[in-house]
């Protein structure tokens, strides 16, 4: 059987694909890979279907063994170690792949030609850590089935993509639905501050530390739908930037949205990095 055995998952490795679409009315969020562009590239390098499931490795540390010879590709956060990055490589039967800590960035996507073929749940192989839906989180000793290779293999040897930056990152912020709930000062602080990415972020969202964003009005907001990239401001005034496993609806006002292509880069921010928002 085509398979990868997990020897060590690192701090957190999950199976992810493009997510569960169109189920919000059932209370089910999209979930899916945090860095969509990186995961799509990994699948493209191997000639996989864009819907193929990959492993999303958080902060490196994953070790796997190929049970049969497999083509693999790593994208996103480049990890220390001998494995090629952003280039397809062959792992022979019995060979092991061990990822060190990321050189920069937070999440590495490991694609396998044929895709990770664990059983889908409600049409997707994504594990949603907020709702608990999806395949179980892999642990040491788990054998992950790999699908049959279909279609033409990729023809690119190495993809010329930039690594996720270390240090300060700047992204575009667009107006949010409740921008008018905040003071002018709060809007100035949003774009004038270097926000610190705290250590208690996860796939649901990043918590940002900085000056307090104050509201210009009081009152409760009835919960409303949101998508990833939302900058929700709870009463503490410290914004939360929603990522892949965000709740379907939320009850705190959203001051702004990170532009969609930039959300992938936010999913690569490690604790301690600085995030700045600029208006388009």
């Amino acid at each position, binding site marked *: 059987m085509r398979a990868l055995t997990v020897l060590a998952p690192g701090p957190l490795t999950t199976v992810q694909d493009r997510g569960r*679409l*169109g*189920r*919000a*009315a*059932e*209370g*089910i969020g*999209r979930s899916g890979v945090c860095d969509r562009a990186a995961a799509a590239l990994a699948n493209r390098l191997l000639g996989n279907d864009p819907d193929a499931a990959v492993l999303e490795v958080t902060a490196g540390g994953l070790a796997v063994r190929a049970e049969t010879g497999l083509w693999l590709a790593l994208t996103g956060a480049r990890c220390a170690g001998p494995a090629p990055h952003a280039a397809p490589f062959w792992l022979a039967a019995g060979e092991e792949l061990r990822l060190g800590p990321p050189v920069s960035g937070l999440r590495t996507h490991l694609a396998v030609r044929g895709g990770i073929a664990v059983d889908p*749940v*409600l049409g997707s192989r994504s594990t949603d850590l907020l*709702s608990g*839906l999806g395949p179980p989180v892999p642990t040491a000793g788990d054998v992950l089935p790999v699908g049959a290779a279909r279609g033409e293999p990729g023809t690119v040897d190495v993809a010329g993509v930039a690594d996720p930056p270390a240090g300060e990152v700047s992204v575009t912020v*667009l*107006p*949010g*639905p*409740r*921008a008018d709930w905040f003071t002018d000062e709060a809007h100035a602080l949003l774009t004038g501050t270097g926000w610190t990415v705290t250590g208690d972020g996860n796939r649901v969202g990043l918590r940002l530390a900085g000056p307090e964003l104050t509201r210009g009005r009081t009152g409760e907001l*009835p*919960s*409303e*739908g*949101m*998508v*990833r*990239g*939302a900058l929700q401001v709870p009463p503490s005034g410290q914004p939360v930037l929603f990522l892949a496993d965000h*709740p*379907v*609806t939320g009850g705190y006002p*959203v001051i*702004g*949205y*990170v*532009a*969609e*292509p930039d959300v992938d880069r936010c999913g690569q921010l490690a604790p301690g990095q600085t995030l700045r928002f600029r208006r388009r």
Partner: protein
Amino acid sequence: MRLLPSGDAGLLVELDDLDAVLALHRTLAADPPAGVLDVVPASRTVLLVLDPAATTVGTVAAAVRAARPTAADRAGGELVELPVVYDGEDLADVGELLGCSAAEVVTRHTGTEWTVAFGGFAPGFGYLTAADGGWDVPRRSTPRTRVPAGAVALAGEFSGVYPRESPGGWQLLGHTDTAVFDLHREPAALLRPGVRVRFVDAR
């Protein structure tokens, strides 16, 4: 109807009331504009989630403005009957809050036709509203750390059924053995927006 910006992958439509939400959700969910990936109803809003590679906020906004939702016809949705054992810990408290006996609470709860307005909180959790209103019950001042799956509860103007064990602050009326969320059923959620619900006293 107000259209509120939600970045380049969303458009939030704010409406006057829940009936308008149900009507617009039904219209858009039945025939979503091109490039719309999901339609998310809530108590006063409908969010359109869009694929920025396939459409633009402006195109979707034009489609929403052109939509002609018919008045939400509460009698139109699928009807689900949920047998309930009314043995909830808060039944007497709810009676006190509403100024009636526990037995009267059961009579009123089973005598009301409920409609699922929107989801959220957890997969399969539906916020149910009464066609004729009349329910307004505060949440418990101290939420429970553990509410069992199947618990039938009230809070504010809403009734709901906990799809799985979770913490919760709603007032518990009883429990149902009907699975309101089942991964092996399609759709998995029984209580989806627009579905009508009748609670039936199972004792």
